[in-house]
């Protein structure tokens, strides 16, 4: 059973702040981490491997060369192989171009099951998993919070919806997208850390995919969505103290919340 786990290196968005004086994003010193939903997916794969020795886990990431360190850490957690898809020509890709590239790489690497995090905490699109499934023409189950059973033919999973959960049986190969709350990811371990230095991250470039992926379908050129403009959220360093009767206090707070769109229906 070959399980491919898709991961992304992201800035820890819980550490990102907007400078209250300049209104710009503070990214200095923000650590890079494995995207939490992806880490849950890796843990789900490792848990399957704990139960079944025949499971072979390949972790795949598309990103800049720095993502190599993160991939080595996945080996230090127990993954068997790691592949980094890195190439300037792949840069600037939106989810549409990214999914084409990942699908081409997956075709080359081989898979029986693909596990991806539901969404990344930087882009928050939740699109790469389903779009990769579409490119590979295989079924998908998104928002998975438990993998209940895995056989060579099918997987039984629990999917979290807004107000209920479904137990679904999906034919393999398939893409599952996982939620960060579904498990507690294991730490690296000293033994696999040592081994990770003898099991280098494999590097793939566009040259490895050129026979099945036209250049106009990758990177910025292959991306139908374009960023028109960006701006940071409205934060303020100003402080003001009011001494008003209770009713006026309540009214002013409610009005402020309404103006700031913090009261929603």
């Amino acid at each position, binding site marked *: 059973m070959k399980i491919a786990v898709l991961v992304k290196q992201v800035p820890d968005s819980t550490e990102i702040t907007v400078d209250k004086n300049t209104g710009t994003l503070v990214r200095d010193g923000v650590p890079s981490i494995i995207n939490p939903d992806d880490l849950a997916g890796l843990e789900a794969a490792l848990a399957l491997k704990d139960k079944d020795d025949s499971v072979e886990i390949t972790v795949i990431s598309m990103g800049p060369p720095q993502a190599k360190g993160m991939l*080595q*850490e996945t080996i*230090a957690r127990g993954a068997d192989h790691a592949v980094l898809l890195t190439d300037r020509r792949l840069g600037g890709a939106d989810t549409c171009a990214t999914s084409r590239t990942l699908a081409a790489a997956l075709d080359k690497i081989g898979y029986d099951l693909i596990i991806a995090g539901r969404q990344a905490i930087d882009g928050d699109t939740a699109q790469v998993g389903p779009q990769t499934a579409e490119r590979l023409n295989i079924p998908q189950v998104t928002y998975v919070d438990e993998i209940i059973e895995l056989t060579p033919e099918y997987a039984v999973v629990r999917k979290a919806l807004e107000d209920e959960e479904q137990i679904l049986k999906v034919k393999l190969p398939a893409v599952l997208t996982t939620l960060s709350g579904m498990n507690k990811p*294991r*730490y*690296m*371990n*000293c*033994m*696999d*850390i*040592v081994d*990770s*230095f003898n099991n280098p991250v494999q590097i793939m470039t566009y040259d490895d995919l050129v026979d099945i992926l036209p250049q106009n379908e990758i990177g910025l050129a292959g991306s139908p969505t374009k960023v028109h403009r960006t701006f940071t959220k409205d934060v303020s360093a100003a402080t003001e103290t009011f001494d008003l009767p209770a009713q006026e206090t309540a009214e002013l707070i409610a009005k402020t919340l309404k103006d700031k769109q913090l009261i929603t229906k």
Partner: protein
Amino acid sequence: MDFNLTEQQKMMQKLFREVAENEVKENAADVDENERFPKESVEVMRQSKMLGIPYPREYGGAGADYLSYILAVEELSKKCATTGVVLSAHTSLGTWPIAQFGTPEQKEKYLRPLASGEKLAAFGLTEPNAGTDAAGQQTYAVKDGDDYILNGTKIFITNAGEADVYIIFAMTDKSKGTRGISAFIVEKDTPGFTIGLHEKKLGIRGSATSELIFNNVRIPKENLLGKEGQGFKIAMMTLDGGRIGIAAQALGIAQGAIDEVIPYVKARKQFGRSLAKFQNTQFQLANMQTAVDAARLLVYKAAMAKENGEPYSVLAAEAKLFAAETAMDVTTKAIQLMGGYGYTRDLPVERMFRDAKITEIYEGTSEVQRMVISGAMLK
């Protein structure tokens, strides 16, 4: 000369930091307050293969280096000195003698479960009348057919009751003094072996420190470690290594205290500005960090000497002496910088201050370290 950690050591350090920050830290106050053994932390260490870091793969260890193990003690001790000493006593004192002096059979039977983390180890040398002066041992073992019969009492034993395997020193020939001491591997459930009084301590209050009582305990001769009469040598060599572990614990406590002080002095305002803006704060912090960094160099150097098979007895003594005194000094200053809040149990520095004191005492007091260092100088 290269003062940098290798890539592998850096990755190990990252793991230890994650475990310390996410698992060990949240229990530290409770472990101290309720004087309870940090079982959850030991379980995470077991899963992360941290209980056999420097031991070979063929016996279930991680097959990593000695400095990586020292980094583990340092990082854990930044958040919880109790957890640091559990790892140090297990790795340096309880497991190392078997790895170093054990027969292949002893290694298979004992080193494998200890290095893989299935079992925990302890070391029993100290007695009411024999601390650093090990020649005063009153525990004795008498040969009886294929066994030894062990009688006596050990005190202040770290991991007592929690450990499954104990390295116990006993007189096998009183007439030979220290050359009459032998080392034995004793299993927890051996009939006649009981855990006695649990000590109530100033610091490292979650570490299990108790008496070991041996009453006609029958030990098979296969569990004699090394040869008869080699016990004293085994004990002294083990303690040399153990000192590097305690030095790392002291280093961790000191750095942990600085790590607590920095956000505090930035946030706390007095006379209209943060404490961090006062020159007294700045100079104190500079002195504290400089001392800790100097201690770190000594500790890592001793660890590297041990890893490289070079003499490390004096280096270990220097590292422990300096790191322990630095820990005491830095935690004292840390409380002073934090004032009344620092003195309360709301913040962890008062615990660090109490924990620091033991590093000047166990596995050889600071005075003993000075004896070791000057002894080598005046030889």
